[in-house]
């Protein structure tokens, strides 16, 4: 597929309330063209809300979201979303799911997109027979077939087992490097954030509380000392000073590290 170009996504003092509950209270965030940003934060802090705002599924209570300098109105047509559940249409075969919403002669393109995610031979099956990881790969093919300028990922790998997750991370990174879209990934897995992102952004109390640039060369190695140091620093910041010792203890146990 051709190298499209990512769009620039700017949040200016974006706030979102649901009734009396203030979820986001002043987000300032600039996502550069083709940049890969990971959003982390405690459960319920508003990560999904931020992503839904970027997708145009919610409107900000105040503030504006700019897409390539233009204020976003209605559904963000330059963006595609990957949800935690793949949200494939169970009544359409895999290839028809990939081509959803496309016009003209898209079959060949859809077959190619499936090939990119390694599922070319499953094109004519029903989604119900696929595994969770395969479904997410179909969802990824569906998201990328229209060459979106922005890809919004809301914990897309959260429900997958550890090995499948690593495979998917590699796949997402590869396709991002090939297609140059702007990526906004919400995750609860600090490892995953450091693995994929150019920048890791922490959301806390409704604002972007902290921002870590990740300068490690790609492809990144989990065993790497700099990698582990950054993960630890981020965890320590999220869990707060009083739980510092706990965080360090937890981070030495690979799996517990994800228990945010």
């Amino acid at each position, binding site marked *: 597929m051709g190298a499209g170009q990512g769009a620039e996504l700017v949040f200016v003092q974006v706030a979102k309330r649901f009734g009396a509950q203030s979820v986001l209270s002043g987000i300032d965030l600039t996502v550069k063209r083709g940049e890969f940003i990971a959003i982390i934060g405690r459960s319920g802090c508003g990560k999904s809300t931020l992503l839904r705002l970027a*997708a*145009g*599924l919610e409107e900000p209570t105040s503030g504006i979201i700019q897409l390539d300098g233009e204020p976003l109105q209605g*559904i*963000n*047509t330059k*963006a*595609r*979303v990957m*949800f935690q*559940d793949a*949200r494939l*249409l*169970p*009544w*359409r075969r895999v290839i028809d799911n990939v081509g*959803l*919403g496309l016009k003209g002669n898209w079959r060949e393109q859809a077959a190619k997109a499936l090939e990119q995610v390694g599922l070319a031979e499953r094109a004519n099956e*029903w*989604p*119900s027979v696929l595994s969770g990881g395969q479904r997410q790969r179909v969802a990824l093919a*569906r998201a990328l077939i*229209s060459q979106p300028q922005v890809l919004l990922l809301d914990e897309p790998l959260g429900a997958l087992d550890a090995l499948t997750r690593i495979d998917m991370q590699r796949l997402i990174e590869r396709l991002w490097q090939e297609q140059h879209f702007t990526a906004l990934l919400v995750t609860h897995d600090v490892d995953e954030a450091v693995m994929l992102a150019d920048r890791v952004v922490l959301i806390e109390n409704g604002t972007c509380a902290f921002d870590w640039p990740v300068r490690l060369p790609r492809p990144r190695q989990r065993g790497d000392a700099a990698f582990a140091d950054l993960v630890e620093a981020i965890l320590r910041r999220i869990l707060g000073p009083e739980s510092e010792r706990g965080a360090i203890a937890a981070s030495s146990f690979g799996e517990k590290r994800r228990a945010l």
Partner: protein
Amino acid sequence: MKSSRWTEWTWGKAVPWVLPVALLVAWQTAVETGWLSSRVLPAPTAVMAAAWHLGSSGELWQHLSISFGRAVAGFAIGGSIGFLLGLVNGVFRPAERLLDTSIQMIRNIPHLAMIPLVILWFGIGEEAKVFLVALGVLFPIYVNTWHGIRNVDAGLLEMGRVYGLGPWALFWRIWLPGALPAILVGVRYALGIMWLTLIVAETIAADRGIGYLAMNAREFMQTDVVVFSILLYALFGKLADSIARFLESRLLRWNVNYQHRP
């Protein structure tokens, strides 16, 4: 080895038919020996003879096509009204608030209780039968369509919007297929009601159709024709059910609950 497997296979196929065949034989013998009066129940052979007679005189096809036409017309009218109401009320909350209570109130009137009124309105003409069938079919289709639409996965609809589907595409790709399993349950149920209504309506007031055939035969003590008419209704009922099953297995192939069904 080979032959034993073959007999096993034929035996397996034959088992369900053992009882009906035995019953038929017993019935035939009971009538022939005079133990069962043919006034009460004519012999199976007599019923077959009546069928042959009606068929060859052409009378049968006339009545059949009349009944069939009433069933189809009533189902089409009641079904489409129920479907549209279910759709509108399922998708648009304000429409539901306006209409649903009224619909539920009318639904609580057994439609067969309307027969005297319907005869007053339409006489015993075609309209009366079609109206009753339509009324009976409307509610199961309405309720199931509404229910199906209401239970369409909101996550899928949201996904559809993000992926650029307009209102029509959302309807054809997501609302309708999502509601289809429930709608087909309604169709199957409505088909049963359709025949039941027709039987009652044609038996009470008609000058043509299968029900008329049976009532007319009763006046002339033609028990064989009466029994044959009953069998015709049973056959039609079975046919309608097979069509519903066929639709389900064709349209819901994607749904694991409907796969590998006989």
